[in-house]
């Protein structure tokens, strides 16, 4: 009786020991796995840091090169001397300025889009010139009349444009078009001084905002022209 | 043609006098700032016309550009200063 009890107790003890061993082995395995994973993550982070650093350096170099090229063209236009000495001087000056101020001219520019943006901006200018001409006729007619029929007011409207450059384009266009001057932009809200309620309603219609959104490819507007431009770009890339 | 340029220049000077009225009698300093900006713009064109009359336009174009630039910078700095000053 006692012997059987002893044998059972021993077997129990061995089983418990076995369980404990397997448990410990499992814990050890998971620990090793965790450590390996941690190591892998650290390695990955290191590699990614190298890559992003390289990318940032590359972006900085692209900014520098673009700024230097534009400034050099500007210098040549200003200088008017085309001998080697002056061109070298211009190259040095452009590189000097671009080295210190490479972050001023280009911010958040997606390189692939810039051709489309520039092309659309050039096509926007004639319309803007026409609007300025109308605006000046408007001011002239207003001023030359003996009794000036104006009813000034400040109106506000919320814009859907997001980036700085598109907001600046819209604000300056508003200032240059008939009867309106941009006074303030606060958190995406334009404060506009309008000479009469007619021009104010024209502004609420939002034609100009649509045009500017079309230039910088913002907002929820998808145009046929967008699709055509995209297909043209992909064709030139050979995709 | 030179007579025509001279006439335009004299007319511009008269317009500058008109702007100077606003600079002198403007009710607040902001009106004066707007008048000064307008005078600067007209001076730009007057300088170019002087250049044409003297036959040295390539010289006066640089001066005119500097004038436009300093006008812009002055305007921005003045606006910033007035904004900081609070109520007028």
């Amino acid at each position, binding site marked *: 009786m006692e012997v059987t009890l002893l044998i059972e107790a021993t077997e129990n003890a061995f089983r418990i020991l076995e369980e404990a061993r397997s448990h410990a082995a499992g814990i050890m395995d998971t620990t090793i796995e965790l450590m390996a994973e941690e190591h892998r993550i650290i390695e990955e982070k290191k590699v990614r840091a190298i890559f992003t650093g390289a990318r940032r350096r590359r972006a900085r170099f692209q900014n520098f090169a673009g700024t230097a090229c534009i400034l050099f063209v500007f210098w040549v236009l200003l*200088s008017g001397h085309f001998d080697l000495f002056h061109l070298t001087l211009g190259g040095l*000056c452009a590189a000097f300025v671009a080295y210190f101020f490479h972050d001023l001219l280009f911010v958040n520019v997606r390189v692939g889009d810039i051709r489309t943006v520039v092309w659309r901006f050039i096509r926007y200018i004639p319309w803007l010139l026409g609007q300025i001409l109308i605006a000046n006729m408007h001011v002239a007619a207003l001023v030359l009349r003996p009794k000036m029929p104006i009813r000034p007011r400040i109106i506000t409207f919320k814009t859907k444009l997001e980036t700085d450059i598109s907001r*600046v384009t819209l604000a300056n266009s508003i200032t240059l078009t008939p009867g309106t001057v941009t006074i303030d932009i606060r958190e995406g809200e334009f404060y506009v001084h309008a000479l009469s309620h007619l021009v104010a309603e024209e502004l609420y219609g939002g034609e100009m905002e649509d045009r500017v959104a079309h230039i910088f490819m913002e907002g929820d507007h998808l145009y046929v022209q967008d699709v055509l431009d995209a297909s043209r770009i992909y064709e030139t890339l050979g995709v | 043609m030179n007579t025509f340029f001279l006439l335009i220049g004299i007319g511009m000077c008269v317009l500058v006098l008109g702007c100077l009225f606003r600079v002198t009698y403007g009710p607040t300093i902001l009106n004066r700032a707007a008048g000064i900006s307008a005078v600067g713009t007209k001076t730009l064109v007057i300088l170019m016309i002087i250049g044409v009359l003297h036959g040295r336009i390539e010289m006066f174009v*640089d001066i005119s550009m500097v004038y436009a630039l300093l006008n812009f910078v002055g305007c921005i700095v003045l606006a910033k200063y007035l904004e900081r000053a609070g109520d007028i």
Partner: protein
Amino acid sequence: MIQKSDDVIVRTVARSLMPFILIYGLYVVMHGHYSPGGGFQGGVILAAGFVLLTVTQGIERTRQHMSQKTACVISSVGLLIYAGIGALCLILGGRYLDYGRLSQLLQVDQPTARSLGILGVEIGVALGVMAVMCIIFFSIFAADETE
């Protein structure tokens, strides 16, 4: 203390005009012997560029390129260039700022040496004027700060 301007229009336009203003100032300095301008005018234009940068982007941004100490050093260097070229002519046996004497040193003929000498003096004057204008501006508008 000059804060960064919270006006997006002025900030963006000034940011994109700033490199062109600087390159224009450098053009005025370098072409002093063909067109109006020279050291003083070019220096003032360069200083106007820095004033524009300070007013729109805040003084912290400007301080990365042009702090009070840097401005002092640059003005001294400008004066040193000016006086050094003058004294070099004196050493080479001419009068003070007698550029023709530089032709022995630079191995070029007289007119080229004169033109190069004037260019060097103008660069010195421009550096001095720019730095001193920046110092004046900083002292007036950021007087409540100690550095």
